[in-house]
């Protein structure tokens, strides 16, 4: 990953408290896993930035190195890597995601 890409990714997760690297957009997800996280966040009424990796191959490949995680989607909350679809879904079901949002002072509705 070149420095430019790394900087771009760092900037995205710094500027957006809840940042989801995904395939497609929150309105038109193009992968079932991306759809699933997007739906969890929408369900919780969390405002988030969706970064469509299909529009930028440098970010698509770079984010995997950045977080040492081979798949997309990837969710970041206040710069912390939370996980992919399975982890986020499980955290939501166990209310751990809600706890994480509270801890990070991100507004959401139950």
């Amino acid at each position: 990953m070149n420095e430019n890409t790394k900087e771009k990714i760092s900037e995205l997760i710094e500027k957006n408290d809840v940042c989801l690297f995904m395939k497609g957009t929150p309105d038109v997800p193009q992968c079932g896993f991306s759809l699933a996280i997007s739906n969890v966040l929408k369900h919780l009424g969390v405002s988030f930035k969706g970064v469509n990796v299909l529009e930028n191959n440098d970010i698509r490949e770079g984010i995997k190195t950045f977080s040492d995680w081979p798949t997309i989607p990837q969710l970041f909350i206040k710069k912390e890597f939370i996980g992919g679809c399975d982890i986020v879904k499980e955290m939501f079901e166990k209310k751990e995601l809600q706890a994480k949002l509270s801890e990070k002072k991100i507004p959401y509705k139950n």
Partner: protein
Amino acid sequence: MSLKSGEIKRLIKEAMPDAEIIIQDLAGDENHYSATIKSKVFNGKSKIEQHKIVYKSLKGKMGNELHALSINTMEV
């Protein structure tokens, strides 16, 4: 690009000999799987670490030959 379920199981077993593994081919296309893995290797580790162990056992196939693998890890 696809990977047989037996191959996925073999790779995980190689990295975690004690693992109990159930692989399901979700769409019947050898491309969308779910894996339920129970191993003491996961004990005391965060979910992110547990999933990383599984990804590492697949030796770079995840995201390449293998498009979609839903992972459920369990401690012993």
